[in-house]
């Protein structure tokens, strides 16, 4: 990264994630590299199956059975990939915590929400039950749940989807983490509620100097909240740039294809130019550039070797051999 910047909070290098399969392994995340600065939001965008959630789970050290990660994940300067599980447990939930897409499945339906927030505190902090109760109310207030003193006695099903997501966020920030991972935190929510939740996350980030890894397929959410963006395709980050540049001067045909797919105002009455075909499965990717079978910029060398992840302009990376020719703009 460019000189003069402070050391990033999280730095991922050469991250590979494999699944063991009957016939050898299948690699679903490949040579991933990005870093997150303190107090800033990194947006990770990409379509379904591109490897966003697995990347998040590998940072948390909770990959599903059968999955294995290799490479390096440094958090506050020390490696956390492959830490023994008791060491990782003292980081997870405390230093790094996560909010998932569907709050209903991550909350326990038979326990009052006050109890669940209190437990999140007691699991990591040496405080009394009474103190935890007081802090639980404060936390619920900080995520803007109205009348938290009464709400702590509610069960999850008594809350709206937006309120449940607020409770999940309260639990995630209970121990003042320095990194919050939000994996599609608003996909299940309505537009006006989505705007509120993203705004809440952004406010908490600013108040607590927290970093956020915001995973979403919504480029609008990224445009509004992220400072740096990584675009994933088929397990790779194919483009990484400061947020303004992604929209004003994308340097990878896949990013351009995503932006072309959005029916902006000025497209009314005109056909869109979507990316042809669909994402192949991890075992059906073309040789060379993994996007080459759908790419309209393809030339013969594209399928000979996989393009490097190259810095095109300071802080702007692309995995495309023709990146420097990309002149597209919205």
């Amino acid at each position, binding site marked *: 990264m460019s000189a003069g910047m402070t050391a990033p909070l999280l730095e991922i290098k050469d991250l590979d994630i494999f699944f063991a399969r009957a016939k050898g392994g299948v690699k679903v995340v490949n040579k991933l590299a990005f870093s997150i600065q303190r107090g800033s939001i990194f947006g990770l965008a990409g379509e379904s199956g591109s490897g966003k959630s697995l990347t998040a789970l590998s940072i948390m050290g909770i990959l599903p059975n059968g999955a294995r990660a290799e490479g390096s994940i440094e958090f506050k300067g020390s490696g956390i990939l492959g830490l023994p599980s008791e060491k990782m447990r003292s980081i997870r939930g405390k230093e790094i915590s996560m909010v998932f897409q569907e709050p209903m499945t991550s909350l326990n339906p038979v326990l009052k929400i006050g109890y669940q927030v209190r437990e999140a505190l007691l699991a990591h902090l040496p405080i009394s039950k009474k103190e935890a109760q007081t802090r639980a109310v404060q936390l619920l207030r900080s995520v803007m749940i109205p009348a938290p003193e009464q709400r702590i006695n509610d069960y999850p099903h008594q809350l709206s989807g937006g309120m449940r997501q607020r409770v999940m966020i309260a639990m995630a920030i209970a121990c003042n983490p320095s990194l919050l991972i939000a994996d599609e935190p608003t996909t299940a929510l309505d537009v006006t509620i989505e705007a509120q939740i993203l705004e809440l996350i952004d406010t908490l980030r600013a108040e607590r100097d927290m970093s956020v890894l915001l995973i979403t397929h919504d*480029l609008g959410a990224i445009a509004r909240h992220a400072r740096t963006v990584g675009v994933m395709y088929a397990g790779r980050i194919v483009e990484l740039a400061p947020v303004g540049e992604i929209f004003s001067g994308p340097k990878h045909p896949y990013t351009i294809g995503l932006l072309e797919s959005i029916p902006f105002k000025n497209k009314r009455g005109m056909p869109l130019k979507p990316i042809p075909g669909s994402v192949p499965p991890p075992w059906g990717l073309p040789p060379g550039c993994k996007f080459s079978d759908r790419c309209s910029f393809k030339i013969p060398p594209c399928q000979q070797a996989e393009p490097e992840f190259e810095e095109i302009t300071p802080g702007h990376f692309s995995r495309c051999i023709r990146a420097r020719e990309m002149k597209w703009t919205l």
Partner: protein
Amino acid sequence: MDPLIKAQDLRKFFPFRKGLFGREMVLKAVDGVSLEVAENRVLGVVGESGSGKSTLARMVTALDRPTSGDVLFRGKSVFSMDRHELKQFRRAVQIIFQDPFASLNPRATVFDTIAEPIRIHRLAEKKDIEQKVAGLLKDVGLGMEILRRYPHEFSGGQRQRICIARALAVSPRLIVADEPLSALDVSIQAQILNILSDLKKRDRISFLFISHDLRVVEYLSDEVAVMYLGKVVERSGAEGLFEKPLHPYTVGLFASVPAIKAREMGAPFDEKMEEKVEKAAPKGDIPSPIDIPPGCPFHPRCPKRFSPCDKAIPQLMEPAGQPGRLVACHLWN
């Protein structure tokens, strides 16, 4: 001339009881909705979850009977049609749903799925069916090689194409599409969107297009109805509506959509500008449809509310100086 389809003051109430011995109450899923779709027009319906969009779609397609009100197809009430007329109606009006997997029979091949309505309505000689199916698949960008395959072998986008091909098999005049894109990735959404707008241009099909994605609605619609808690709060030509929304809910809804626009111009990250946008998004939760607020249903969240708002229900009317537009808001009445 009669519009293709006309919904008149539709209501759908679901009775329920709070607790075992509680008082009988009603959930007003749709409460007095009127709208029209003319030939070769697209009416977009937007609204948040629980606003009654799907319930409306089910009544317009006669899958459900309204509690009161009527649906007229070319001027004739669909709920008093005889069997023959109803069959014609079922052919002319097709529906496609959000979840393309749930609406396909897992044990039927692509060929059987698309051939079934052709057989039911006797639209082709037996020997010509295969050719007709192939033609329909081509319209939605699929090839012949998939004829003998089953739904589970396809991606979400391919399944939605199959559903569209099945709907097209009977040469419908109106397609009611209930969130047809929301299960799909953006690049696939754009492919399907192109197919739908081609159908409008080429076959002059009308659409009642339900979606919570405002960009998609703006792109495709000629007119738009905005629903909130069972009511249409604003209805207008699409261009006017997106240019200048009048109802405070519409204003807030539009403000909630993250603006790529500022970035479109390559604007650098600017927290101040972002803040201004945020302030406009409506505060508070969407009330439950079992507890619809009195007066204007939006008043608890409305930044513009004043004295009549929590008492009188505003009617959908044309505001002074805004010809062709309809708003249900005391500010404009």
